[in-house]
Every structure is written in C-alpha cells, then in structure tokens.
C-alpha cells in the first residue's frame, strides 16, 4: 500500500465514522419528534397539577398563583399548545408539592426564641 492510499482509506473510514456519529446525534431528535406531546399528555399533566394543588390546600399550604397557572395551562391545552400547557402544569404541580411540604414542615411553628426568652 502506498502512503497515498493509506491516507485515502483513513479519510474514507473517517467519513464513514462521522456519518454514523451524525446519525446517532440526530436519532434522539427523531425520538423527541415522535414524542411531541398530544392532548392526552397535556390533560394528564393538568390533572396531576390539580391533584397536587388540592393536596396542598387540604393542609392550608396552597400558594397564591397555583390555581391561576392551572387555568392558564387549560387554556393553552384548549388552543392545542400542548408543550406549553405541560410546562406550566408541571410548574403548578411543583408549587403544589412545595406548598404541601412547607405546610407540614411548619405545623409546629412557634414563637421565635429571641422573643420567648424574655419571659424566662
């Protein structure tokens, strides 16, 4: 094999490799593409957010904007903007979860020591 043909075959192999790499890179995109959220996924996210909101409310821990966010997510879903609806619903669900945990964590809240120490 001449020096030239070795280089040529390496180049060829290099080209083939990058083609494979390129395909690999595009594959996940294809996967995501096929997973473009549909209506049922959006509605499921909204339902989960509403459940989390109600759970927070049941312990007095609901945050101010959660219900509004869920309403907005419903509007987005009705307009066919499922990805945006899911994102907002997920934020609302997170608020519900945080509000619930917060309320449970604070159920024994009491006078701060810097005040109460004065009575001892």
């Amino acid at each position: 094999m001449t020096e030239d043909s070795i280089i040529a075959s390496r180049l060829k192999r290099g080209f083939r490799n990058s083609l494979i790499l390129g395909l690999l890179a595009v594959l996940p995109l294809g996967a995501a593409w096929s997973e473009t959220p549909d209506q049922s996924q959006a509605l499921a996210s909204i339902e989960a957010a509403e459940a989390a909101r109600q759970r927070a409310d049941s312990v007095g821990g609901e945050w101010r904007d959660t219900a509004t966010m869920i309403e907005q997510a419903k509007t987005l879903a009705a307009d066919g903007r499922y990805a945006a609806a899911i994102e907002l619903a997920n934020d609302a669900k997170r608020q519900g979860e945080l509000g619930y945990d917060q309320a449970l964590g604070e159920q024994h809240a009491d006078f701060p020591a810097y005040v109460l120490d004065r009575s001892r």
Partner: protein
Amino acid sequence: MTTARSTFMLAVLLVGLMLAGGAFAATPAEEQAAFQAYFKQRFPNVPEDEFKNGAYAIDPVGRENWEAIEEFPPYETAISKGETLWNTPFANGRGYADCFADGPAIAAQYPRWDRERGMVVTLPLALNDCRQANDEAPLKYVKGPIADLVAYIAYESRGQITQVEIPADDPRALAAYEQGKRFYFARRGQLNFSCAHCHFANSGARLRSEVLSPALGHTTHWPVYRSDWGEMGTLHRRFAGCNEQVRAKAFKPQSEAYRNLEYFLTYLNNGQELNGPGARK
C-alpha cells in the same frame, strides 16, 4: 439491688425530662408578656400608648402625612353610614340593639371564645348572626356595609381596652389560641415568610414604600380606610392581603383560620387601647 437502683435512676431521669419539657411550654400569659416586652425593648422611644398607631408610631415622615389626613378623616362617611344601619330596623321591626344589649360600644367584647358553639366569635360574625336570627341576609365580610357597621361600633368604643380572655376551664379555647399561633409563625407562600418575619424581626424596616409596623398595636383600629384600597376594609381583608404578599393563597374572611389568628393576635395585644376606625396608607 442493682435493678432497684437503675429503676430509681430511670425515674429520676424521667422526672427531669418532664420538668425540662414543662419549662419549654410557655403559657399564653407568658407569651403575651414576652411579646409586649419584645416590642417595648425594640422601640424604647415609642410610648406604650403609641403602638396603636401602627407604622406612624415609628415613622416620622409617614406620621406627618397621616396627621394631615386625620384632620378630615376618610372614614367619617363610613361611621355615619354605620350609624344609620345600626338604627334602621330589620323587616321584622327588631334591630341590632335587640341583639347587643350593651351596643353600640361593644368592640372590646370581641373576639371572644363562645363556649356553647365551641368557636371564636368576632364582631363581624356576631353582627351577621344577629341579622340571620332576624331573617336578614348576611353581609359580605371584607368591605361595604359590614365595614360601615363595624366602623360605627369601633368609633363608639374608642378608649376601651383590649381584654381578650382564654377561659382556663375550656381547653378548646386554648387550642384555638394555639392554632392562631401556629398560623402566625408558619412560613407560607412562595416567598416562605411568616407574619413574624415582617412584623417582628423586620418591624421598623422599609418594604418598598412602606414601613413595616410592629405587631403590637395591630388589632386596635379596625376597620381601616386604606388609601391603597380607596375604601374601608376589615381586619380579615388585611390578613388576606398580607397572605397574598408572600404569594400564599388567602383564606376566606371569617374562616376558622382567620378567626383563630385574630383571637391569638388580639390576646397578645391585651392592654392596648381601642382607637378605631383608622386611616392607613
């Protein structure tokens, strides 16, 4: 022998633990004393009878403006509307005076623990009870006619002294106080603040354009004409506003949560003179 001794040691340990536990649980009276001492120490130059003026007891600039406003009080129309309401008979010919024998100067009787109903009764709630007992529709709680009525009653009650009681022989009253206390000190909302974060530790500091008022004095002057609202509002309207400021969902006016909160906060303010209705920014 060794068993007897270790049993004895265990008993000593248990008694010690119980004593230590007892020492940590303060009574409402101790908490009230600590609360008042805290604010007097925090604001040593504010005379005791000034706390009822809220932020204007500690903010000289805001006070100038407030004193000018008080020369032509924006709550005056509410007082006279309230007086008319008080004196207008219900459809059945009876009136508020038939429900409240000591009326209209009854503000210092509320909030109070109602033993029969096992709940805290506030003045607005008692007024609606009276209406309903006489087949009148209840009034809405945050503003409007209820605020007018309470304004008139508050005005007639000026000079009375806050004197909330927690009857020692009804543990449910103490439980209501405790629930109000938990509410007060619980962090809530997206901002994760408790009432105390703003009205204890940061009282006197500025939040945007407002000076944070100390919690001592918070219950004396309701309802209030707030320039920000452009109208009168009740104490529970203010509670709701403060909940929403920290991005928590507000509770319903006259909900159990807010009634117990009012019970707790007013008890801590025992000894403060009533000076409602008030004017605030």
